[in-house]
């Protein structure tokens, strides 16, 4: 085919004149095509490399913004309250960043969004940040703690004293004094650490009281012969009644019941020496604090364990399960879904009264100034005890639940390059 085509061309021309010009033209066109293709490929690769470089630079600038903000947060855990937007911060020739902070809610932790601009490229990094709280441990105690051979604890254990372990800790053990292995196992090892100051909780409780007052959920001392408050949760509603009799048996008589919605602050504060008797089911983040003790007067349940909300029970003295009550008034199989904190007393059962009940399941956290204890021999407390740390608490601590460190400590829970906008 090729020869015949050339032949016809030659016949048209009559002789060889112009053949060279034709070949030069064809070859020139081919060369032009090849050269322009190579140039286009080189330009594309250069642009592609340049884009990657600039995008990486922009990401690093955004990351620098995150790190700068985290530095400020370490100095002041409330930095985000007064500095929710840094505005554009120049990094000279490298570009500029802007960090905005979204305060934590019951469904989202403290979130930082950093936009980095560098040489006409832009990247956004979103991080979530948490602070260490008293709800970070299955057991956090201000004294020594001894874990029995039958115990299986899911979550971390931390003591300001000595930890003696004969059981199984599915987590880490932290101690300020010493660790004694009595034949137990610890999945994530042991480490020595500093003590946690339980006295600082008083300042946090004062802030909770102030916030509750502003929210209309501060309940003052009752006076007279009242024996405390009965607090019954029903999803997002809380019914508060004054107890006239029945705290010894659990067979209450009450008066003056009122029902409120869990406020946006999420906190209720009870300032009666008789304390607050708490039970029910919650479906919204809530912290109940008492200037005296909290008594868990029945099952205290999270409506949906897949929810991000959580609940805290803070007693300035104890957080106590009144196991002296008969099974008519306190279940023999009991469940508490909450982070509990006893500032100067203990998270414990009433081990001086009543008979042995069947089981206690705690899905939450325990922080106790004194030794937490839910059984005494075979006569008091609960015969079976299940301690399951609620890992949701490390991302979504209950409202205003106290931090363990006022400055310096935080943890980055996630670091994500955000989706491009538009």
């Amino acid at each position, binding site marked *: 085919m090729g020869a015949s085509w050339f032949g016809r061309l030659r016949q048209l021309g009559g002789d060889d004149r112009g053949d060279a010009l034709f070949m030069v033209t064809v070859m020139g066109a081919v060369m032009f095509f090849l050269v322009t293709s190579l140039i286009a490929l080189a330009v594309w690769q250069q642009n592609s490399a340049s884009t990657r470089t600039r995008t990486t630079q922009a990401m690093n600038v955004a990351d620098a913004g995150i790190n700068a903000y985290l*530095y400020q947060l370490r100095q002041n855990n409330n930095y985000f309250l007064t500095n929710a937007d840094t505005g554009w911060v120049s990094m000279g020739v490298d570009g500029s960043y802007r960090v905005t902070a979204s305060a934590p809610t019951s469904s989202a932790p403290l979130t930082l969004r950093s936009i980095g601009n560098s040489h006409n490229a832009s990247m956004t990094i979103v991080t979530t940040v948490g602070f260490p709280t008293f709800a970070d441990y299955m057991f956090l105690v201000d004294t020594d703690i001894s874990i029995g051979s039958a115990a299986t604890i899911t979550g971390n254990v931390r003591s300001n004293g000595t930890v003696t372990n004969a059981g199984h800790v599915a987590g880490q053990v932290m101690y300020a004094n010493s660790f004694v292995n009595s034949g137990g196992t610890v999945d994530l090892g042991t480490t020595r650490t500093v003590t946690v100051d339980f006295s600082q909780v008083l300042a946090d409780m004062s802030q909770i009281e102030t916030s509750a007052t502003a929210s209309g959920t501060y309940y003052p001392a009752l006076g007279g012969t009242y024996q405390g408050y009965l607090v019954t949760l029903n999803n997002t509603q809380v019914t508060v009644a004054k107890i006239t009799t029945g705290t010894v048996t659990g067979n209450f008589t009450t008066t003056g019941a009122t029902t409120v919605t869990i406020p946006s602050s999420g906190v209720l504060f009870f300032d009666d020496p008789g304390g607050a008797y708490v039970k029910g089911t919650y479906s919204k983040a809530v912290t109940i604090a008492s200037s005296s003790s909290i008594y868990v007067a029945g099952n205290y349940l999270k409506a949906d364990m897949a929810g991000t909300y959580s609940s805290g029970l803070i007693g300035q003295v104890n957080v106590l399960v009144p196991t002296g009550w008969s099974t008519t008034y306190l279940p023999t199989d009991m469940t508490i879904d909450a982070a509990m904190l006893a500032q100067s007393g203990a998270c414990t059962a009433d081990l001086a009264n009543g008979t042995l009940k069947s089981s206690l399941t705690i899905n939450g956290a325990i922080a106790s100034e004194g030794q937490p204890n839910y059984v005494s021999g075979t006569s008091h407390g609960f015969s079976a005890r299940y301690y399951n740390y609620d890992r*949701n608490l490390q991302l979504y601590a209950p409202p205003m639940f106290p931090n363990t460190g006022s400055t310096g400590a935080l943890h980055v829970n*996630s670091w994500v390059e*955000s989706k491009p906008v538009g």
Partner: protein
Amino acid sequence: MRSTQADKVGAALNQMTREIRQAQETQVGYGAFSTAQTQTISFYSNVDQDIAPELINYYVSNGALYKRVDQPSTSVPPYAPFVAGTPTVVIAQVNPSYTGNTFTYYTNTSPPVSTTDTSAISAVDIVLTGQQPSMTGPVNIRLESWVQVRSLSNPLN
């Protein structure tokens, strides 16, 4: 054609780097990695940027590099159990003559130390290889990247 294969390996490395860089713990203290082997890596990373991280798996098998994304079953930590996804081929033909590690893991110490303890890993060295047929025989491609998990290696943590 050679650049196409190199681009595929490069794109795979960029994607892996990005996913590992934003890996996160699902249980505080347990680390961001589920599996840390020389030819297999599994880690938690919120690649679809919803409320919960996915379990991302990369593994070399039968001369190819595969990826599988397992979805969380809950929206709260620890998000388990994860529901296994369908594997997809990332690199159809890795270099069969490469016998080194595809994944090597490092601690957050200074200097970093190689480790296989999933709770101690904060950085990963990735070596991706590929092979491209040509008139003069297969051309080997080798790309390497070292990536820090930002949520675990933040110097301010």
